[in-house]
């Protein structure tokens, strides 16, 4: 019943991805914990957290694709929401350290002690409770995105203008979080975490659980995305992407739709960030770097935007590439990475999945026409046309 409802809202691809994610959520931890290190199927802890990290990136990519791929809003500042979610989680983890900090101050995090702060700033209250922090992981990015989006979409800021102000947003946050006076640990950020929900954050079991959680949340993200995309709202979004003003003349309040999906996406990014921090062990302002947000865009593009699993593939591939190249040819790896981006744009304009997507939808479309026997001359002529048009940053 539930499963049936579930599958009614995701296509086959989505279904398979979700099942796959659930599978690794179970298998990887098991192999890491139970199998002996000698076994060929043993996944070392190092890989567990590494892939875990990739998956959080993948989640960020999915969130970004929801607004860019399906609604044509190119955000160059999604890293900001990711980082904010991360900071919310980081603040919880800081509070968990308690008196185990180097200065053994029961309340104040170390960086506050050596900056000689007397008491906890108000915005740190409540973060000793996991659930409050978890709430903030959703609320902080959500509220920021809502406020920002409400302004921007209402006054019909579109295209590069929107992209650039999202970049301005993350850049401003970067500078702000660098400042020690902000009370977020300056450029060193938050680190040296001890435990999460009572589990020692460095224990293999914790890492495995974090990994599993990440995989499951990614599965959830995939489900939510495909639910949205397959609903009538999803159709509206694609309509907005392709012909925004037409949508208005049909009586849709485009700004509200954008605002909705924008906020959802921001929250998704926030959750990704929150899962990222305990696995990486540090959160600092560099996460706000505009370059990071641009990289996220690139993951999506590489994987194939406007698809649900393209971003996942892109994020994992690019980051794996980064991990591999920086170790294999540290001196020249940037050439490889740069070349990858150029090649992908030139030869896989719609990303790795795009190839497939193009081919598939052409196929279905043609079968539809063949079934309809009559092949209109125009359609025949234009059959070379790729049915997935460019998501335009502006109409």
């Amino acid at each position, binding site marked *: 019943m539930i499963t049936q409802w579930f599958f009614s809202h995701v296509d086959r691809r989505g279904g398979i991805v979700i099942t796959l994610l659930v599978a690794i959520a179970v298998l990887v931890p098991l192999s890491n914990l139970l199998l002996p290190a000698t076994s060929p199927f043993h996944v070392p802890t190092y890989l567990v957290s590494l892939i875990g990290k990739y998956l959080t990136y993948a989640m960020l990519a999915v969130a970004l694709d929801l607004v860019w791929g399906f609604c044509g809003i190119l955000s160059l500042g999604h890293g900001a929401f990711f980082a904010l979610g991360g900071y919310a989680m980081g603040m919880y983890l800081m509070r968990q350290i308690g008196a185990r900090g180097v200065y053994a101050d029961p309340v104040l995090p170390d960086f506050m002690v050596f900056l000689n702060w007397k008491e906890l700033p108000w915005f740190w209250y409540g973060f000793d409770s996991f659930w409050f922090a978890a709430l903030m992981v959703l609320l902080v990015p959500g509220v920021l995105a809502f406020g920002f989006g409400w302004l921007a979409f209402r006054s019909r800021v579109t295209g590069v203008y929107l992209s650039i102000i999202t970049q301005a947003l993350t850049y401003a946050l970067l500078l702000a979080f660098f400042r020690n006076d902000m009370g977020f640990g300056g450029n060193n950020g938050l680190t040296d975490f001890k435990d999460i929900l009572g589990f020692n954050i460095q224990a293999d079991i914790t890492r495995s659980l974090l990994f599993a959680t990440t995989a499951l949340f990614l599965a959830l993200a995939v489900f939510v995305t495909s639910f*949205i995309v397959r*609903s*009538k*709202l999803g*159709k*509206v979004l*694609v*309509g907005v992407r*392709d*012909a925004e*003003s*037409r*949508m*208005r*003349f*049909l*009586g*849709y*309040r*485009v700004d*509200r*739709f954008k605002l*909705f999906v924008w906020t959802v996406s921001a929250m998704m990014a926030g959750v990704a960030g929150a899962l990222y921090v305990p696995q990486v062990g540090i959160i600092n302002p560099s996460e706000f770097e505009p370059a990071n947000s641009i990289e996220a865009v690139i993951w999506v593009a590489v994987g194939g935007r406007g698809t649900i699993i393209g971003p996942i593939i892109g994020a994992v591939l690019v980051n794996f590439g980064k991990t591999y190249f920086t170790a294999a040819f540290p001196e020249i790896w940037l050439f490889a990475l740069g070349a990858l981006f150029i090649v992908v744009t030139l030869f896989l304009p719609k990303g790795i999945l795009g190839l497939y997507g193009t081919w598939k*939808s052409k196929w279905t*479309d043609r079968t*539809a*026409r063949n079934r*309809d026997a*009559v092949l*209109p*001359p*125009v*359609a025949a002529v*234009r*059959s070379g*046309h790729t*049915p*997935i*048009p460019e998501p335009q940053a502006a109409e």
Partner: protein
Amino acid sequence: MKAQDTLLYLDGVSVSFDGFRAIYNLSLVLQSGEMRAIIGPNGAGKTTMMDIITGKTRPDTGDVYFNGEVDLTKHDEAEIALLGIGRKFQKPTVFESHTVEDNLVLALSGPRSAFSTLFHRQSKDEAERIREILDTIRLHDKRDWLAANLSHGQKQWLEIGMLLAQDPKLLLVDEPVAGMTDAETAETAKLLREIAKTRSVLVVEHDMHFVRELDVKVTCLHEGTVLAEGSLDFVSNDQRVIEVYLGR
């Protein structure tokens, strides 16, 4: 004449874009159930007039009333659309990456809020209405096609179909037969007359044959203001109209 008991009421409307007067002191009244053809040379302000009615452009001066009481200058595109004014663009704009059917689904009248669309499931009579419209616009057998692959004429029709799905009180149709074969043109005329039985229609068109086929009251615009109004024969015999079209 008063705004009451009219469907569309424009009075003394003027708008200019940095100096250039697109519309000047334009007045036009449309009774409910009426079909009106607007003719006029390029730059006569036909499209601008539609922009004003649909809220895309705000007039500098003048009143624009719908249903006698609604001041259209106070609403934006979406609201006006919901009031029951549908618009078809000169260049057919359909959602190319959606199928014919989905295009109609999107246009179909009904709740437009984000959440209602998120959890929307298609009801029986919605399906029924879509079937009807597909028949009316003769695209029934192509419902699964991506709109991108329709011929130009088919797109024009699909857009008209979307208008119907919107179920508006007033249709604004901008050059519906541009680039259509004669056969298609005739078909379209028939279609529009059919529609006009239940709704008011404002058609902007160059093609005189087509206007003649519609055989309705004609308003001729020139330089943003009404030059002549009446039956096509009356208008086309008007001296100034002839000058405008044939030049001095």
